[in-house]
Each structure stands twice: as structure tokens, then as C-alpha cells.
């Protein structure tokens, strides 16, 4: 599989917050979830990749080409949905389309009309009057109507009700059915990724903590529950995070085999959120 996006040694220093040597790759045909709590650096990373925030150092390659200097051509191949849209709110849906559409060489008006009609958007409605969900659907309509190969979304599900979130995930799966498409999707709502992500990248305090295939991540980590008498200095080290109560313990491990060999505890499959919190807890200790 080809690398659609390669980020190498990306640094940005805001004084109070830093992106620290961010490196990761996105592979063609995959949905990658970019996870982390609020303020972890997800939006800053995405904006730096897109050139909205200027990097201090590092390299960003899209489709094998450095983005700096080739941005006009490369941006024809990406669709972007930013947190909150960044629309000119007092324009109507149609007016905003008239601003965005001429920028793209491959703009497909029929495709755009299909999305608008599917989402029940009224072209004469002012963007300011759209609900959060409708705004998101409009942003997706604009981002997907030029046959983008890479869709980059910053917190698209944040603030949406479960029904619209589900609808959004269906749209992403539909998009992925076309050959050669890739999605990069930042969120702090990890339950969305349980359903659709192939790969997960965790960022915390501007630092990438892991970048792994979702299934491998879930297979290698375990939610361990057991009696406190199983805990000793050696077994405690097997946990990323450990919570002890009067009666027992519960913890997340990334050394499932060792836990099974050394403890008589119950090992269950953890959720992405449990793994994320375990790593973040470790990172903050």
C-alpha cells in the first residue's frame, strides 16, 4: 500500500505548547483515527500539515510530494473538514459553493447536488442558520465534491448527536468503498473509531504516543481484573494503568501474555478509550 501522507519530525513551538517531533504515515485505503484529549495537539497537527500553521521544522509529504511548493496541485486531491467549518456564516449555502467550487480542477457539480439533496440542504439557506449537524453535512458536501483522494477531518463528530454521528460514519464507509481513498479523522470520541478505524494514532501534549493498527492494538492490550493478592512489584510493572480498590484491581496492560502467565486474573478486550486513557495517564505521571 502507498503512503498517502508522510509526516516526519514535525515541530511547532507556540511558547506554552509544542508539537514535538511528530512523525507518522497514512496508508492508502485506510481510515486513520487521530485520537487524544482536548488540547492534546490534534488540531495544531492537522493545521500544520495543511500549512495553516507554519512549522518550525519537519517535512510533510502528500502523495509522495513535499507539500511546500506543490500545494496548489496537491490540495486538489484532498478534502478538508475543519472543526467549526470556518465558513463565511452570512453567505448562503449556494454563495459559499460559488466561492469554493472554482478552486478545484475536478469539481463535480452533479456530485455536489447529490450530496446537497441527500442531506436535505436548502441552497438558499444562510450558513449561520444551520444546525451543528447540518453544518457538518454541508462541510462534507464541499469536501467530497471534487473527488478527493484523502479526506482530512478535524473533530467532525464533536457536538453531534448519536444519530448524525452514525450517519457521518456511514458516509465515511461509503467514501472508502471507492478505490484509493483514505481518511484521516481526529476525534476525542473514541467510540466512533471502534466502528470504522483501521489505524489509530494517539497524541498527548504534542507528542505521538503510538501509531498502530486498531486490531493489533486491541489484541495486544488487555483489560485485566483480579484479586489484589496477585499484585506485587513485578506484576505491577506489567500495567500501563492500574486502579486498586478494597476488593481487587482493574488495569490496562500491553503485555497480555506476561499477565496471563504470571497472574490468575481475568483478561478482557479493552475499548479504545480505555487504552487511550491508560497511555495518557502514563504520559502524565
Amino acid at each position, binding site marked *: 500500500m502507498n503512503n498517502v501522507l508522510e509526516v516526519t519530525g514535525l515541530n511547532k513551538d507556540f511558547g506554552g505548547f509544542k508539537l514535538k517531533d511528530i512523525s507518522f504515515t497514512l496508508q492508502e485505503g485506510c481510515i486513520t483515527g487521530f485520537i487524544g484529549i482536548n488540547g492534546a495537539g490534534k488540531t495544531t497537527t492537522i493545521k500544520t500539515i495543511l500549512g495553516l500553521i507554519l512549522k518550525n521544522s519537519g517535512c510533510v509529504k502528500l502523495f509522495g510530494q513535499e507539500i511546500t511548493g506543490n500545494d496548489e496541485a496537491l*490540495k486538489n486531491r484532498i478534502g478538508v473538514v475543519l472543526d467549526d467549518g*470556518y465558513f463565511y456564516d452570512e453567505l448562503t449555502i449556494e454563495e459559499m459553493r460559488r*466561492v469554493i467550487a*472554482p478552486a478545484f480542477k475536478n469539481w463535480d457539480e452533479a456530485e455536489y447536488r447529490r450530496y446537497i439533496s441527500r442531506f436535505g440542504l436548502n441552497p438558499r439557506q444562510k450558513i449561520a442558520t444551520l444546525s451543528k449537524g447540518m453544518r457538518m453535512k454541508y462541510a462534507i458536501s464541499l469536501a467530497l465534491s471534487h473527488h478527493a483522494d484523502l479526506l482530512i477531518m478535524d473533530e467532525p463528530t464533536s457536538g453531534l448527536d448519536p444519530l448524525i454521528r452514525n450517519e457521518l460514519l456511514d458516509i465515511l464507509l461509503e467514501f472508502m468503498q471507492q478505490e484509493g481513498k483514505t481518511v484521516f479523522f481526529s476525534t476525542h470520541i473514541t467510540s466512533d473509531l471502534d466502528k470504522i478505524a483501521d489505524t489509530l494514532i494517539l497524541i498527548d501534549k504534542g507528542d505521538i504516543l503510538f501509531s498502530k493498527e486498531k486490531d493489533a492494538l486491541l489484541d495486544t492490550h488487555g483489560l485485566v481484573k483480579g484479586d489484589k493478592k496477585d499484585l506485587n512489584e513485578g506484576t505491577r510493572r506489567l500495567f500501563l494503568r492500574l486502579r486498586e480498590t478494597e476488593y481487587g484491581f482493574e488495569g490496562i496492560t500491553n503485555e497480555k501474555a506476561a499477565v496471563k502467565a504470571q497472574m490468575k486474573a481475568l483478561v478482557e478486550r479493552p475499548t479504545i478509550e480505555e487504552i487511550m486513557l491508560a497511555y495518557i495517564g502514563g504520559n502524565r505521571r
Partner: protein
Amino acid sequence: MKMLLSLIKKDLLLVKRYIPITAVFAVAIPLFVATRIDIADGGFLSFFLTVVYVQFLLISSLSMKEYKYRGGALLCTTPYTRSMTVKAKYLFLLMIFIGTTLIYTATATFSPVEIPLPSISTIGIALLLITIIYGIYIPLEYRLGYDRARYMTSILIFVIPFVLPLILRWMQAGNAKFNFSLSISNGLIYPLIVVIGLLSMKISTSIYCRKDL
């Protein structure tokens, strides 16, 4: 070129609400000046004030909308480049100037009060002054942001009506000098406008390209 035109159209869409009121200003200012101020300047003051007010109203409205919605960030995720958005802003400014000149000319032609038609040199000097004012202001706005630059413009716009008549009277007092400057301007003024405009555009682009959006 198509992309540049779309960006100018975007600017127009953002200020469309203010266009009728500025058109009224473009008609009312020359009529007001013609009835209240008796100054033998070939209609320069009247024309210049009209252009300054219309430019100020539309450009500051546009900057306010850009500041409020931060749509520039979304545009920069598309193939529109930062340098294109800067160019569009300067072209929009020129478009407002042309539009105002046309309205002013129509007003002067059909007005019941005598308003001199703007001559090529009147238009040239006014455009040169506008280019100098906005040639400084636009890069400053990109550098400082809308809010801080707004205070500077407000001060400037209040000062101009008081200072300009004084300057013109002073220039009229030395009549030979004034005529001399106009005859010089006919040959140099338009190349000077292009040079100042392009220089300012280059500075604005370089500032905007280094900004985090």
C-alpha cells in the same frame, strides 16, 4: 485568473449588504461638497473625499467579515493560495475605485448642481493617494490584525477632511507650484501607482504567508 475572479467575487459577496448605502454616499458626497464648499480645485476634493469614504466603508467591512469568520483558513485548505487572496484584495480595492469613479461621473453629468467631471489627472492623483494610503494600511492590517489596524484607520478617516482642505488651500496659495505638480503627475502618476501598488502587494503577501491561520 478564474480563481482570482472567484476570490474577488467572494469579497463582493461579503460586502454586498453595504453596497447600496455606499452607492448613496458616492452620489451624496459630491452633491454636498458642491453646495457647501467653494474651492477652485477642478473638483479634486469632492472626488477624493467620495473615493476615500466609499473605499473606507467597503474595505473595513470586508476586513471585519474576514476577521469575524476566519474564512481565510478554509480557503487555504483548498487550492487557493495565500498570495492569491492578497492579490484579490488589492484588485477588489481597484474595482471599488473604478465603480466609485463611474458613479461619481454619472452624478456629475446629471446633477442639477455644477460638479466638475473628474479629469484624468484628478483620477490619477486620487488613485495615487488611495494607493499610498491603502498601500501602507493593507500590509499593516495583515501584520497587526484587523482590530488594531481599525483604530489607526478611524483616526485617519477623521483627520483627512480637516487636513486636506488646509493642504489644498496652501497649495492654491502657491498656484504655480500646484499646476507644476499636476503637469508632472500626468506622465509619472500611473507608473507610480503601479509601482507602489505592486510593492505593497508583495509586502502584504510576504506578511500573510508567514502568518498562522
